[in-house]
């Protein structure tokens, strides 16, 4: 299924002038590059132009630019693996399938002059609903050293990814939502105490998968993102066979320790997977704080 993805972002001047603004997003992703599902492997072509490819070829096996073995416990490896996780989730996740890095087994990096740094990671992931471990994933992650934030380029394959089958659950949910008289809404997932009503779990997962796109796009060697909270979710009208939702999610960057708020529109159906159709950063202080009685973020 062909997908052309448009990501439209507004650049919001932040009211308090937050200094670590990284919102420039103009990446356009085509279906050919992004979605190549073959035997559970995902290949995205690293977008190196000819000059860059030549540079890469030169440096490969050149002792002046060696592959550096990385300690799998240290943050360069763990941050790169987290990016691969976000990529994997965005391309393979669903309301019933959400992966977290389980263990980093091997990691190395190489400097690519004039371009950036490329990481090679071997890792395992665990699917959160089934607790199944997918043991053999390899990824190449290229962080370009650019002035403005640019999405890391990822090449990721996992053996046995397709062993986790959620299509029945996905279809059942899809039909359930399609047949509701009212569009669904939800807030505060989880609540302050970590509770999630059972019927909200798929929407929490869906938010996580959508957020994975944003986290992938926003990542660099100085970030480590996790989705901290779903502030709100609201089903939107959609004319086609896709379900559409509007989310406000809170992302936590471990490195700066900041909580950042993103608004996103997510489209989903069981066969086409999850797509973020729109997203933008919300300035700090945008979210209205409810009254003191309730638990809130």
């Amino acid at each position, binding site marked *: 299924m062909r997908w052309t993805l448009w990501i439209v972002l507004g650049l919001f001047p932040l009211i*308090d002038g*937050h*200094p670590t603004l990284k919102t420039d997003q103009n990446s356009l992703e085509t279906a050919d590059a992004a979605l190549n599902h073959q035997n559970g492997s995902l290949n995205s072509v690293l977008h190196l132009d000819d000059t860059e490819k030549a540079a890469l070829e030169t440096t490969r096996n050149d002792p002046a630019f060696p592959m550096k073995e990385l*300690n799998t*416990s*240290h*943050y360069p490896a*763990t941050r790169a693996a*987290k990016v691969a996780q976000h990529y994997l989730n965005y391309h393979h996740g669903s309301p019933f399938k*959400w992966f*977290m*890095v389980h*263990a980093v087994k091997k990691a190395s990096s190489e400097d690519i002059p004039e371009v950036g740094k490329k990481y090679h990671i071997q890792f395992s992931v665990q699917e*959160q609903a089934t607790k199944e471990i997918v043991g053999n994933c390899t990824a190449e992650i290229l962080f370009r050293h650019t002035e403005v934030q640019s999405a890391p380029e990822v090449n990721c394959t996992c053996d046995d990814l397709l062993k986790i089958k959620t299509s029945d659950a996905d279809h059942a949910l899809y039909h359930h939502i399609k047949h509701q008289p009212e569009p669904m809404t939800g807030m505060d997932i*989880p*609540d*302050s*105490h*970590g*509770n*999630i009503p059972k019927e909200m779990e798929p929407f929490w997962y869906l938010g996580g998968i959508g957020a994975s796109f944003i986290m992938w796009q926003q990542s660099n060697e100085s970030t480590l993102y*996790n*989705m*901290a*909270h779903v502030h709100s979710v609201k089903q939107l009208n959609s004319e086609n066979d896709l379900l559409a939702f509007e989310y406000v999610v*809170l992302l*936590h960057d*471990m*490195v*700066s*320790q*900041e*909580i950042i708020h993103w608004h996103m529109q997510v489209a989903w159906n069981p066969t086409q997977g999850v797509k973020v159709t729109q997203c933008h950063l919300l300035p*700090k202080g945008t979210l209205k*704080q409810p009254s*003191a009685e309730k*638990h*809130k*973020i």
Partner: protein
Amino acid sequence: MPLLFRDQVLRIKAENAEQISILQSLETQEHLQLDFWLHPANPELPVDIRVPFSNVQAVKVLLESNNIQYSVLIDDVQAVLDEEQQELEVNQGRERLTKSFNFAAYHKLETIYEWMDTLVAQYPNLVSKINIGSTYEGRPMYVLKFSTGGNNRPAIWIDTGIHSREWVTQATGVWTANKIATEYGSDSSITTLLNSMDVFLLILANPDGYAFTHSNNRMWRKTRSKTSGSCIGVDPNRNWDAGFSGPGASNYACSDSYHGPFAESEVEVKNIVNFIKQHGQIKSFISVHSYSQLLMVPYGYTCNKPADYQELENVGKSAASALKSLYGTSYQVGNICDIIYPASGGSIDWSYNYGIKYSFAFELRDTGRYGFILPANQIIPTAQETWLALMHIMQYVQAHPY
């Protein structure tokens, strides 16, 4: 049971066999209604007799006229019984309170403070509460002291909740305090530890922040101090006097890692520093955070390893193994700067440089699925597994005095 108002218990020291036989003959005098708590047997052993009030004078005269030595052990049996009964009821009430406290839930600040008082009241010979100073907004900072005596014994320091949104840490602190108090005497490792060391546990290291996470913003991390401008709060774990304002800390007041205007500007940090310095015998300093499942050692302000790195890493690795043995939870071990990020002004860097060799920082569950909002049903498993790591460290510290 008949009222024993002003009945007395006399302790009699018989000197010879003759006096013993006099006392034995007293036993047969039913009209005296004597209740022998310790029967006359031989002169080596005391004879205790509860004497009804109406017969007290007569019995005393009899003893004196036979030159039998005695003393008044209890001069009003009923009063003793009344007091005992009262204490029993109070303890039962407290026990109900501590037993009914739900460790598998997150509680507001006031509830935790109330619970601390019931714990102290329940175990007064083991647990005491120390106010180490007030917060910016005027809340008390209470440290629980676990001690079996001695005079300023070498001690372990543990703090939880310095970053207020890390709720599983305060909850783990509460569970841990309860664990130590309730199992001292029955758990051999706790008992051995407290035979020669004290434990200080600061459950709410950032009370103002914690209150704010309940009332306004679940994601609040910092203190609530007003410095300059419109933004509030300082990252209390960038405010210590160790590489202050170095890498990994922000000089922007609105940042969640704002280090503050100067080291120890935050009264919460200053209170802990003062306590540690004044105590003088702290041998281990453990700060508990969440999330990421890490057990870290100094330094954060530099990636250079501390002199004791190898030993600390070894202890950390064994502690992490112990932790993993319970539920399979995996922790990474290493120095802060390499494992997570360069971060200056951190508590365990300060404590290590101050001379407290066994300085450790935990990041508890999970690795990002729930993050700060860990479901309450994971509190107890988290606390249980963390306990194994803490115990390993504490036992090691006890076995390696310095």
